[in-house]
């Protein structure tokens, strides 16, 4: 019982990260403005992702969630969907907390 409660708490946090990132993408990329954007959608296929926007997103994630994204986390896989970005933040939070 106790373990389950902890897992649920973690899920709530990841969902919060995801909601926050989704809102940011909607606000800053026309391609996501008036369409459905699921957490699993590949955002690279949906809108053109410039290195400029990637930098903005990186700064946003780092400042909003107070994490530092190391070089080896900067890869297509971690940035390809809202869900994966949120998971990455959760993982960075976890390693920072240890």
């Amino acid at each position, binding site marked *: 019982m106790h373990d389950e409660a902890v897992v649920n708490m973690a899920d709530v946090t990841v969902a919060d990260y995801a909601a926050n990132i989704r809102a940011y993408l909607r606000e*800053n990329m026309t391609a996501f403005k008036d369409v459905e954007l699921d957490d699993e959608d590949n955002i690279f296929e949906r809108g053109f992702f*410039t*290195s400029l*926007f*990637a*930098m903005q997103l990186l700064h946003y994630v780092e400042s909003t969630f107070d994490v530092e994204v190391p*070089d*080896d986390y900067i*890869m297509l896989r971690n940035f390809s969907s809202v869900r994966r970005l949120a998971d990455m933040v959760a993982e960075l939070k976890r390693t920072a907390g240890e």
Partner: protein
Amino acid sequence: MKMVKCVVWDLDDTLWHGTLSAGDDLVLREGVVDLVKTLDARGILQSVASKNNHDDAMRKLEELGLAEYFLYPQINWNSKSSSVAAIRQKLNIGIDTIMFVDDQPFERDEVAFAHPEVETVDSAELATLLTMPRLSPKVVTEDASRRRLMYLEDQARTEAESEYQGAADEFLAGLGMIFHIARAKGDDLRRLEELTERTNQLNSTGIQYSYEQLEELMHSPDHDLWVCELTDRYGSYGKIGMALVEKQDDRWTINLLLMSCRTVSKGVGTVLLSFLLKQAAENGKRLFARFRRTDRNRQMLVTYQLANFRVVSHEGSDYLYENDLAVRQEYPEYIKVEIDA
């Protein structure tokens, strides 16, 4: 020795004799107009850090016919070090490429204390300015002589952008950008040499190439040397990017990829890389890239790694990437890409 990209001027008793706010009769320092115009022609940007009433000082500069030479003049009552920082940020250049001229030791020391990388010069030494190596580029390219104009065009864009309500990519779409990629020609080489010296942020290795080396590479059958020009409805940004590809059997290696910092906010950094990916795929080659991590080129790392380049080996801060060409990204809709291969 790092070349100076911007000279920041004090006004009272530096650019002119006398104090504006004291109602003095102001007389330009002897030879100062020539000095400003010569620096401008050399492609060195200039700005102002002056403690004065902004409107009064600007009016005076207009009257003297000098206002247009100064980008983002900082005329206010703040410390000069904060004015220098503001200019650095607006121009998006390194703090170690700024030179500060002032007659008052206090102001020079204040700036030097806050920014030890900034070289400060006493106004009494103005006559020596034009012979300083840091202010004497070996060659002045066409891009360099237009540099101030390009920044002015950029200022107009930035103002339009800050008034624009909506997503950044929507604004970019309205610029009507054309990105032209061509093989380097003889008259591009000076500019390419200059780009390798001046570009820090969007630079994959930071290795500088001389004119002679570039000339050899241009003629080499084992290399492709690409040059890019960007234009939009405000004007041309000039030749703003380059790529050097080494071709060995089935392996292509991007030895250098760089984009001028002027284009950082235009979202074009990815276009040249997309072009190289397409080229390699069409020719059935494996594509590698060299990357040297510095404390300033994180954006280039992001550009490569989010374009699906993966580290295959590394030694210290030198990385070798490979792209398996499985993921290809189209050019952005808001840029028209023209290729002259």
